[in-house]
């Protein structure tokens, strides 16, 4: 059913539904296997064409990254390119911001539903959409999608998405304390940004006048249009060579294969139930304890994920809309159980989800959601990782077992007049270098990645300094920040950054996980340490000679020479002056297994490389080292480990006897 009479084939979608009802139906449809049609393809030709399509999307990604001028895109890689069949079913996604696969499928269906009749969908059109209740996550994630036509018939859709620096919200970059979606910047439920190959100047003008950084926002959009054009031109060439019917069948088969292989893999999992709970500590407005609770059940050849027990939606933006939450769950499965399958909607086919309405992972419109990737969506991914890893262990997929990666994302949001005398709103993305969770055979990666955007990176310090009025005093890995264990969670990091060459600037913070440990370990591994944010105002440190300030290498050094003003995990952007300094630290990954099982030689190496402290080596790992050469004192280590075991026995109590 659609307004334009285009059969989307979505059960229960009827005329006269409210927008919210339509969006929910369309969003949940990504979980339904698609109806099957006969496919008659030579398997070798299919594989060759599938790989051609992958290569075409990669080429589109390169075009996007080379055209955009935003460091978030060019260096951090915060973008996604994907291809969809005629009805909008996701056939393949390149790496990047993975949670958007599900929401982008919904967005295309929404565009078909809303606009197929009027104003119509025509060759050369491209649509801009960023409503987080339709595409998921937050307004900063701006999607442009283009239908690919052959002889006036749509054969596929290509979609490009970037995390855009700024969308004109109540605070520069994005707000930390919005109380509804209307405070979170421009929200577009679909407009033609290109009409019949002609850019729509009114749409570009809306974006130019509605945001703080019109140049970078425009460049991002031009880059996505270019990427879509590159992909559509290549696909048209491919269809000329191979034929329209062949191409359509290849897309269908890609989805069928995703479905079939994921169902097949689920069969290896024994029937059972796995549960996990994770906690957060700040609702956007105040300190507040909340939780995400999941029960994962394998039965009848499917995986049921039930989030009953999850806390109600938060008053501030610590929420994730339904498509963002489904996408976050997709991100976990695509990074673990199904990592080697075709990355498309087929991976979701064996899943049945119950995400209660009114919770922080399925809030009611117009609840604020802009902090989703830093908070609710990241915590959701960490929680789901715990149950999926336990399930994978029981299935014998030992290589797909890991502790949660950093389950929050501490972001710094900023804006004002920068050093180039230009109005600006932006964000630094140091937390993309998060610690990943340890596995059953490897330590987590130190300052490596973020599960919701595993292909994304932290930009070079110099890039941030060139674009923003900032000077980094240090950015480094932080010892003891990952979860301890037989295999150690990857360490997170910390940064101290001067405000430089501006007198009109504001800085805000956006994260959770300071007062509670939001990134857990697994199987006896410990949680990662907290995040932290704060300022040193008028420090004078910037005026020190380089030989002096180079001695300031850690938070303790900073604290010893200046007054540190501790901030809450989320804090609205407040004015700063030239020479002020902000400090932030971001999380590591969870640990795996009992730390007493860790090879003492690995502990010695960790201490020497400043991954863990000498104190923790002795207290938690029970390893005594000979200094200064960092060799293991084997006899003392054995005694210390026995002592820890005795201490456990002395302190423990029993639930039942």
């Amino acid at each position, binding site marked *: 059913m659609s307004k334009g009479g285009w059969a989307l084939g979505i059960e229960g979608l009827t005329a006269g539904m409210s927008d919210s009802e339509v969006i929910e139906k369309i969003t949940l449809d990504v979980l339904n296997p698609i109806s099957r049609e006969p496919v008659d393809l030579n398997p070798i030709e299919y594989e060759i064409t599938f790989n051609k399509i992958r290569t075409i999307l990669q080429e589109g990604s390169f075009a996007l990254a080379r055209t955009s001028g935003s460091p978030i895109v060019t260096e951090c890689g915060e973008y996604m390119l994907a291809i969809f069949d005629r009805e909008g079913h996701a056939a393949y996604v390149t790496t990047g911001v993975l949670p958007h696969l599900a929401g982008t499928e919904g967005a295309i269906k929404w565009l078909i539903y809303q606009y197929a009749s009027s104003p119509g969908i025509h060759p050369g059109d491209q649509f801009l959409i960023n409503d987080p209740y339709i595409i998921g996550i937050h307004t900063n994630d701006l999607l442009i999608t283009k239908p690919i036509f052959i002889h006036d018939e749509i054969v596929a859709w290509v979609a490009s998405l970037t995390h855009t620096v700024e969308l004109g919200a109540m605070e520069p970059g994005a707000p930390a304390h919005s109380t509804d979606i209307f405070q979170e910047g421009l929200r577009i439920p679909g407009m033609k940004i290109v009409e019949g190959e002609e850019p729509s100047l009114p749409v570009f003008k809306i974006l130019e006048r509605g945001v703080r950084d019109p140049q970078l926002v425009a460049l991002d959009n031009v880059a996505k249009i270019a990427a879509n054009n590159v992909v559509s031109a290549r696909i048209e060439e491919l269809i000329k060579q191979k034929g329209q019917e062949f191409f359509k069948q290849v897309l269908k088969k890609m989805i069928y294969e995703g479905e079939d292989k994921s169902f097949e893999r689920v069969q290896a999992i*024994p*029937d*059972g*139930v*796995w*549960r*996990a*709970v994770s*906690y957060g*500590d700040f609702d956007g407005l105040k300190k507040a*304890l909340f939780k995400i609770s999941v029960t994962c059940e394998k*039965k009848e050849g499917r995986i049921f994920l039930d989030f009953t027990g999850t806390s109600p939606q938060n008053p501030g933006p610590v929420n994730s809309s339904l498509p963002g939450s489904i996408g976050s769950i997709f991100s976990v499965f695509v990074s673990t159980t199904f990592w080697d399958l075709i990355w498309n909607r087929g991976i979701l086919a064996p899943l049945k989800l119950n995400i209660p309405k009114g919770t922080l992972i399925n809030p009611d419109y117009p609840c604020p959601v802009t902090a989703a990737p830093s908070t609710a969506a990241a915590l959701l991914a960490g929680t789901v990782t*715990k*149950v999926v890893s*336990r399930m994978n*262990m*029981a299935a*014998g997929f*030992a290589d797909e077992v890991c502790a949660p990666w950093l389950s929050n994302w501490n972001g710094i949001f900023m804006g004002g007049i920068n050093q180039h005398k230009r109005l600006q709103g932006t964000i630094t993305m140091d937390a993309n270098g998060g610690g990943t969770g340890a596995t*059953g055979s490897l330590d987590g990666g130190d300052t490596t990645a973020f599960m919701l955007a595993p292909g994304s990176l932290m930009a070079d310090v110099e890039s941030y300094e060139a674009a923003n009025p900032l000077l980094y005093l240090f950015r480094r890995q932080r010892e*003891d920040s990952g979860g*301890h264990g*037989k295999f150690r969670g990857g360490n997170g990091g910390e940064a101290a950054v001067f405000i430089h060459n501006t007198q009109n600037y504001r800085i805000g913070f956006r994260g959770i996980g*300071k*007062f*509670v*440990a939001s990134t*857990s*370990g*697994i*199987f*006896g*591994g*410990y*949680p990662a*340490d*907290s995040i*932290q944010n704060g300022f040193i105002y008028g420090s004078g440190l910037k005026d020190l000679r380089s030989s002096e300030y180079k001695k300031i290498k850690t938070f303790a050094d900073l604290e010893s020479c200046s007054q540190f003003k501790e901030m809450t995990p989320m804090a609205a952007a407040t004015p700063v002056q030239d020479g002020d300094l902000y400090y932030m630290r971001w999380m590591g990954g969870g640990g*795996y*297994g*009992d*730390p*007493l*099982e860790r090879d003492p030689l690995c502990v010695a190496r960790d201490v020497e490389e400043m991954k863990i*402290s000498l*104190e*923790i080596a002795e*207290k*938690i790992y029970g390893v005594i080292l000979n200094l200064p050469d960092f060799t293991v004192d084997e006899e003392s280590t054995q005694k210390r480990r026995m002592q820890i*075991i005795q201490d*456990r*026995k002395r*302190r*423990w*109590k*029993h*639930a*039942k006897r």
Partner: protein
Amino acid sequence: MLRDRIRIHESLILERSAEGSKAEIKCLKCGTVLCDASKNYKEYVPYVDRDPRELNHLLIDSAWMIYREYYCPHCAILLEVDPTPPGESHLWDIQIRTP
């Protein structure tokens, strides 16, 4: 069909008894039987509620969160660390269906 031995955890195994009548959860390190497979093992093993500050996790509010550590009752290997508000019940995190 349930396999006779399933590794359900880094340090735990679910094993069907020789006569095949029941399944149990055992410690992989020392072989101690913790409980019947149909039960929550955490209710049958000793635990410690640890203050996160013992790990130098100094910013955690211990009124809101403790680290609950579960051990094998025999060899004392650390089986799980649940970051949880004080006083919460023992989360049943692994429950394999045994026919």
